[in-house]
């Protein structure tokens, strides 16, 4: 039942989750996208098992940060728009298309909304891709981090990232980065969710708090 608790998507929509850590990294043939699971409202943890990774399409996911309500709504709208788009073109949408739809909403409503979505996925044309859509820009990056916990791991990800990492390397990278951020950021914590997307499908995993990697002072 702990596993079920882990995978349950909570409904809370009025609480902020820019207190969060999200990360995505691309490898040859796919992407790994991950997040923590804490939703806090001020000093209280409102949900400790929230899954902040939202599917936009079969092989395209986004990671939510910022206001939980805004982020969830954006993800729902883009999910709908992508469904329509993929029926119109008759095939699976490109990751860039999904990211563009997110960017369009972020940019048009940049004064009203405060959410940042990292979009990551796999498509036939360009393989694994990660896009950032902060403030309404659209940029493809080899990896991306976001949320309040990301400040603490800039040094770590800059040092650890190398070109040509394998799927397994990327999964370890994501889990280590999330664990480090969760240790230092009061607004990130709980369990680590990550999703691996490649041409064969998507694989969702959850690592419980006591199974996360530990560091020198634990």
């Amino acid at each position: 039942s702990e596993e079920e608790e882990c995978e349950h998507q909570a409904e809370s929509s009025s609480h902020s989750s820019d207190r969060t850590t999200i990360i995505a990294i691309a490898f040859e043939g796919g992407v790994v996208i991950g997040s923590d699971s804490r939703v806090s409202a001020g000093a209280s943890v409102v949900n400790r098992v929230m899954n902040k990774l939202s599917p936009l399409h079969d092989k395209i996911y986004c990671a939510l940060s910022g206001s939980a309500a805004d982020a969830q709504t954006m993800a729902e709208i883009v999910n709908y728009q992508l469904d329509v788009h993929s029926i119109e073109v008759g095939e699976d949408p490109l990751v860039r298309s999904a990211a563009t739809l997110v960017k369009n909403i972020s940019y048009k409503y940049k004064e009203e909304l405060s959410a940042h979505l990292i979009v990551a996925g796999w498509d036939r044309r360009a393989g694994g891709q990660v896009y950032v859509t902060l403030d309404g820009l659209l940029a493809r990056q080899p990896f991306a981090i976001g949320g309040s916990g990301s400040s603490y791991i800039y040094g770590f990800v800059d040092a650890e990232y190398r070109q040509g990492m394998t799927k397994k390397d990327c999964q370890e990278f994501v889990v280590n980065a999330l664990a480090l951020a969760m240790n230092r950021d009061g607004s990130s914590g709980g369990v680590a969710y990550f999703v691996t997307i490649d041409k064969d499908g998507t694989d969702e995993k959850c690592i419980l708090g006591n199974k996360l990697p530990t560091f020198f002072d634990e």
Partner: protein
Amino acid sequence: EIPQHSLPVIPDSTTSLALSGSYVSNKMINKLIQVHDKIFCCIAGSLADAQAVTKMAKFQLSFHSIQMEAPPLVKAAASVLKELCYNNREELQAGFITAGWDRKRGPQVYTVSMGGMLISQPFTIGGSGSTFIYGYADAKFKPDMSREECLQFTTNALTLAIGRDNVSGGVVHMVVITEDGVEHVVVPGDKLPKFHDE
């Protein structure tokens, strides 16, 4: 305004940018102040406040060591700074890392925060750039590293912080303090290690 890094035995280090508003007034300033033979302080926050406090601390420590007829303990130096920071916490805006070597406890590192808290740690980081390297430092620090490993760890950590913090930069200063003495190491910006995006 600077990332700082302090390890037992070894490097006490800092970058060297000094700002007035958004103007860089000095790119080579040394933020490592020697308060006694084998005790150094890294300063952060208002440089003026920090310099005034360390000057006072240096005087108090030299007087103390004459009275005790022995070099002061690192903890004593940190305490002196802490008293000054705590008692004047309304006016001051400076934080310190005190590190050094003494005969009683060997190499030690103490953090004196802006409000006047004093704690001892195996290693510590501070300054505006430090937030970016918490993850890196947690992941890479191991107790009982050798001198070379410590120097490498510190240089890497500072380089990563400079890479992300817009108000850190310039030259990296490090001081290695051991039982045998004190050595100052300076690494100019172009000799710093390069990471994946450079």
